[in-house]
């Protein structure tokens, strides 16, 4: 599988993501600079974690208006898989590729810890290697992960099975609506989540449960 990781000024988990993708897919991903207007030929575009533009103004807001974004929107239209992790999720929401917005954590503090994630829909390109209802541990590290959207959109997300992952067992770290940890677009090829599966891929991390997420995409594009 060919993958590409987009790097914005202030991205800071791009090295984690590049390493995870290379380990799991066996192919070195391309690193794409935000100022470029074209994407390389790729099966998966990843927007990684970090503080693009310092998280200034609104998290993800400035990056979402960057040069590379129209190319990502076009790729998504063509059905290319797009994954946004943490700041990447925030950028996708700001860019309108996913609905809703990630607001300040309810506790108003940055939070870094392990949470339990429940697979709310195992029938997606990003979760098919998990069992439905499976619960796995994964780290979060963010200050703005509090997912919010209007009641109508929420109803649609839930009704259409577009909530991919939820915080389980009362581990919701940020006050997200319906314990939402990750959502899909209508077509199911764009996925955004706050937790960091790329930091849960080898025994050093305490478990390898994050791999299945990448392996799901690998299988989906095969």
């Amino acid at each position: 599988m060919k993958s590409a990781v987009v790097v914005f000024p202030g991205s800071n988990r791009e090295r984690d993501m590049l390493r995870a993708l290379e380990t799991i897919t066996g192919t070195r991903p391309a690193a794409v600079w935000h100022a470029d207007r074209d994407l390389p030929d790729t099966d998966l575009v990843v927007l990684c974690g970090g503080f693009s533009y310092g998280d200034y103004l609104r998290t993800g807001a400035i990056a979402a208006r960057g040069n590379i974004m129209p190319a990502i929107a076009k790729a998504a239209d063509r059905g290319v898989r797009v994954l946004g992790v943490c700041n990447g999720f925030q950028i996708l929401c700001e860019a309108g590729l996913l609905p809703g917005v990630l607001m300040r954590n309810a506790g108003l503090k940055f939070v870094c810890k392990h949470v339990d994630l429940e697979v709310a829909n195992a029938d997606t390109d990003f979760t098919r290697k998990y069992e439905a209802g499976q619960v796995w541990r994964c780290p979060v590290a963010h200050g703005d992960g509090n997912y919010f959207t209007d009641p109508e959109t929420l109803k649609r997300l839930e009704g259409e099975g577009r909530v991919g992952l939820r915080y389980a067992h009362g581990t919701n770290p940020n006050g997200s609506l319906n314990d939402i940890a990750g959502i899909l677009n209508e077509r199911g090829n764009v996925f955004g989540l706050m937790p960091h599966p790329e930091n849960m891929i080898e025994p050093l991390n305490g478990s390898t449960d994050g791999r299945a997420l990448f392996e799901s995409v690998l299988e989906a594009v095969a």
Partner: protein
Amino acid sequence: MKARIKVTLKNGVLDPQGKAIEGALGSLGFSGVASVRQGKLFEVELAETDPAKARAALEEMSKKLLANTVIENYAVELDEK
């Protein structure tokens, strides 16, 4: 020309910071605070001197960047002299 843009959360949008401030004011002993909503204020200095053009540009900036119109409203104020 100087201008201000106020960006506030739309009604019905959850405001965790405002809520926390309400709580904090309560514990500091301020009673009678019915609600607090937190917004943003941008003080902008423009080269443009024509008020109509300046206002149009500021509206554009608000829509394109400064406000997330899914959850926020904005209002432009010019310092007319």
